[in-house]
């Protein structure tokens, strides 16, 4: 497992000496970067717009909510989802970049799952859209693996002592989707209505789904 340190040091140099010579305000720097890249033909602004459109209207937590609702109403699908998340989510055509290899982890009365990426911000984008700011921040990344109950308390979620917490640190390209418990009192609901109940937070593991 050799790695050439010279390539590594080379990158280091580029970071160090540029930041002190640039304006602190990111808005100015990003504007300058876009105009430079456009002038050099290294980016097409229309493609930037298209990517923003992808996350503003095509990809988001409603994808994940549909997967959860289907698993709640269709036991066979739930079984497929838990045994091969990628294939089952592929059935709904919700696979995609940062969501090609997905493992669904089920919350039960005895086990509560919590997803984090301590090393950067890995997150199942294709089913949940872009991660919230707190998910990418140092407080969450640092404490989720050492004090999950303390972190959940900050989300207003207190789990009884007997519940086992399983934290999933997304250190590879495998992405984790929490299958929250279906709330009581939703027996008569349609799949669509159930999906509407499913919150983004519950699919990360920092919240539960409530019937109201």
């Amino acid at each position: 497992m050799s790695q050439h340190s010279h390539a590594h040091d080379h990158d280091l140099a580029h970071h160090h000496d540029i930041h002190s010579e640039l304006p602190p305000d990111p808005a100015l720097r990003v504007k300058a970067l876009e105009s430079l890249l456009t002038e050099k033909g290294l980016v097409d602004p229309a493609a930037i717009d298209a990517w923003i459109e992808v996350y503003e209207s095509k990809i988001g937590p409603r994808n994940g909510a549909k997967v959860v609702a289907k698993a709640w109403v269709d036991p066979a699908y739930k079984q497929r989802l838990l045994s091969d998340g990628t294939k089952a989510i592929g059935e709904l055509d919700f696979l995609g970049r940062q969501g090609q290899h997905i493992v669904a982890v089920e919350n039960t009365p005895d086990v509560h799952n919590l997803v984090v990426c301590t090393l950067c911000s890995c997150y199942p984008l294709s089913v949940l859209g872009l991660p919230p700011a707190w998910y990418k921040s140092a407080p969450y990344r640092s404490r989720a693996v050492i004090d999950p109950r303390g972190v959940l308390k900050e989300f207003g979620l207190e789990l009884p002592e007997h519940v086992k917490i399983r934290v999933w640190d997304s250190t590879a390209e495998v992405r984790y989707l929490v299958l929250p418990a279906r709330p009581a009192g939703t027996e008569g609901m349609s799949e669509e209505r159930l999906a509407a109940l499913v919150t983004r937070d519950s699919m990360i593991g920092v919240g539960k789904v409530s019937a109201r």
Partner: protein
Amino acid sequence: MNSIHDVGGMHGFGAINAEADEPPFHEAWEGRAGGILEVMTFPAGFTVDRFRYLRETLRPDLYLTQTYYEQWIYIAEQALLESGMTSPEELARGKARAPRREDAMRSDAVWGFLHDRAHSGRDLDDAPRFAIGQRVRARTMQPTGHTRLPRYARGKTGSIVSRHGAHVLPDASAHGKGDMRQHLYTVRFAAQELWGERANARDSVHLDLWESYLEPA
């Protein structure tokens, strides 16, 4: 506390850039800051361990960017605020409200203070638990308060190379627990035990560790 101060074994901080013929203070205010933190009257019960702990609570990016003596000023501000000796308004305005004390250290007492022999060694009746040469493991523990057991050594096995009698335990003394004392040992860890077989087979790192940090290996 596993905060940013515990940097042993980290990468990414770049070159050391040692300065030749460096003056003790690069600017006048640094000398003043050093002097303040050394000769000022601290709150009752304040200890060097509390001093170190307060520095560890600095916001991580500030810990890495503020100069050393600027962090000392932060420590003094925290010590004064948390003990109520100073109010936030006084600090912000630099103007005092409460009555003046007359017991500050005088200049003619400074040389004596710098050569005073009060120290952290303490008497302790119970015999030391570990012997020279004994194999011990640094415990895997994650106190959220002050500790002097760096993360890089936790869970690692080494051998006792010397004993220093009993000393005040920083983990207690930093949090108002006064004079709890424990036997203090120097433990040698092989570099390969700490960093894996790619480390030099001959080299070692020595840490001074309190008895409660250690367990028989």
